[in-house]
């Protein structure tokens, strides 16, 4: 029986090790090795940090790096602010059928690829698009208005794309908030605001954290939305990685960028977890 358990254990461990080892850990180590490799001439390489140096000194890269980080945080915050009241409505105000229907409605965009969602926004926002036409028709504009190709458009897209990943964890945690706890808050003299601050938000914290982490990750790693909706200044770090790999064929620098993005996301995720005293397991698992 012992031996059997042991064999079972090894059989179950193998796929995990192969998967994590061959597809996650070793590739990332290899990526790191490539990123610290400098090409001296045809086929001659040397270990050096020159790519990181370049990444950290070249204003474009640095700026894009921070811009991406800041905008992703911003997108996360906006998503949270928009999603919270809605999630609350679904979890606590709506009842029965309405609740189910609203929740399913929230999932709809998820069932459509990001490309289609972005495409939809392009049709809406472009100079010859629906909104521009509507504004003109309503007399609010006397000529076509371009709403595409700027940071605001990009933000709209990012927030839209991530909305579901914020709403779902929020609804789940808020649903687990016992109505009677809220009632107790009022019963003991609380007002709407104090109940929100002292009871609802602390309770929703796990959902807020996991929603924020996922949304942040999605924004940071997004490629489609910034490239399609963003303007000539709306550079995104993933674009730089793509450019280095595909346009410039500079894998070494691209790998360094990739690694920087990885570090950035890890640091911010770790920071969020630290700030709220939660573990990755609780948050994602």
């Amino acid at each position, binding site marked *: 029986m012992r031996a059997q358990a042991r064999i079972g254990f090894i059989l179950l461990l193998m796929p995990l090790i192969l998967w994590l080892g061959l597809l996650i850990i070793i590739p990332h180590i290899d990526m790191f090795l490539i990123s610290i490799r400098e090409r001296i001439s045809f086929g001659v390489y040397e270990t050096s940090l020159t790519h990181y140096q370049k990444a950290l000194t070249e*204003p*474009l890269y640095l700026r894009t790096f921070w811009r991406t980080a800041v905008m992703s945080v911003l997108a996360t915050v906006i998503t949270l602010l928009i999603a919270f009241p809605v999630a609350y409505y679904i979890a606590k105000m709506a009842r029965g059928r309405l609740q189910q229907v609203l929740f399913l409605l929230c999932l709809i965009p998820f069932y459509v690829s990001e490309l289609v969602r972005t495409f939809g926004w392009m049709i809406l926002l*472009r100079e*010859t698009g629906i909104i521009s036409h509507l504004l003109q028709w309503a007399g609010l504009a006397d000529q076509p208005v371009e709403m595409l*190709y700027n940071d605001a458009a990009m933000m709209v897209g990012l927030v839209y794309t991530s909305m579901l990943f914020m709403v779902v964890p929020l609804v789940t945690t808020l649903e687990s908030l016992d109505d009677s706890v809220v009632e107790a808050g009022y019963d003991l003299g609380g007002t709407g605001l104090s109940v929100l601050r002292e009871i609802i938000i602390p309770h929703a914290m796990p959902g807020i954290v996991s929603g924020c982490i996922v949304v942040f990750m999605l924004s940071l790693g997004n490629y489609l939305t910034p490239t399609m909706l963003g303007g*000539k200044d709306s*550079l995104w770090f993933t674009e730089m990685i793509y450019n280095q790999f595909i*346009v410039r064929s500079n894998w070494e620098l691209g790998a360094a960028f990739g690694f920087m993005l990885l570090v950035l996301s890890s640091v911010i995720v770790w920071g969020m977890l630290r700030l709220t005293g939660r573990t990755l397991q609780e948050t994602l698992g």
Partner: protein
Amino acid sequence: DTLRLLTWGGYAPDDVIELFEEQTGHTVEVTKSNNEEMIAKLRATGGGGFDLAQPSQDRIMGPQMEFGIYKPIDVSKLDQDLFIPSMLDATMANTTVNGDVYGVPHVWGTSGLVMNTAEAGDIVKDYTDLCDPAVAGKVSYRLKRPTLIGFAFSMGEDPFAAYDDEAKYTEIMEKVEAKLIECKANVKTYWGGGDELMNLVRSGEVTASMAWDTGGWKLNDDNSDITFVAPASGALGWIDTFVLPAKGQADDVAYEWINFVMQPEIAAKITAAAGNFTASAGADEFAEDALKAKYQASFPQEAIDNIKWYPPVPAGLEIIEGDVLDRVQAAN
């Protein structure tokens, strides 16, 4: 067999593929791309994944020397009579590395200005005119090397002459960089693909742009105000080629394809789809008269003479250009 073709949009129209498949029993899978991506893809695959690719002739020598992603072409397997001799010779010469030939010509054309002459015709005569405040927010170009070259010429420099002089080339590029940064505010968006630009111009969102000739001619059908104009400093001439990726697996089919599409009637169909003329000898006969007319309208004789043909890009230049492009993109 399957021919995996890595090419530009329009170079392998469906009707041509159908004909080819009917006649030979092979199937053709097309991946649309551009020069940079073609090279990057082939580099990533070590020259595999595709059986035939079509980068421009100036982009063959450098990557081949560095990455070895192509394999030599056995010109004897081609029906050389189908090619315009001068173009074949020039391309072969530009794509020879260590005595092996790597490319043969397919489609050629120019880059210049596509514009709505009614709205921007009086203002935009050369690339630098795209920066005129009168067309602010209504112009577009690519953030790619042809733009750098074009601006350099229209600023009175000769970048091709400086190809072998890195210092000189850098100097030219710095000037271009300054100009492009200054011009940035004027640009609506940097376009990426040919059809993207066509949509921008057709919808009126853009009135003038640096672009390939064919785009202007196509739009001319819808709106006679829109057309291609050779810039005062001269259009840039390019030739897209056929190359065999180093680890292609269907060379014979690739040769068959080349021989097939270079037949004048077929080449004419490609011209109709892509909008550009081919290196096929005698295809002119089959080309639509309308297109020829547009070509002639855009290219008076002196403009033809003024076309600047791309010489092969030496290694190293693209790094300089890449940095310039990055800085332009970064500028506010």
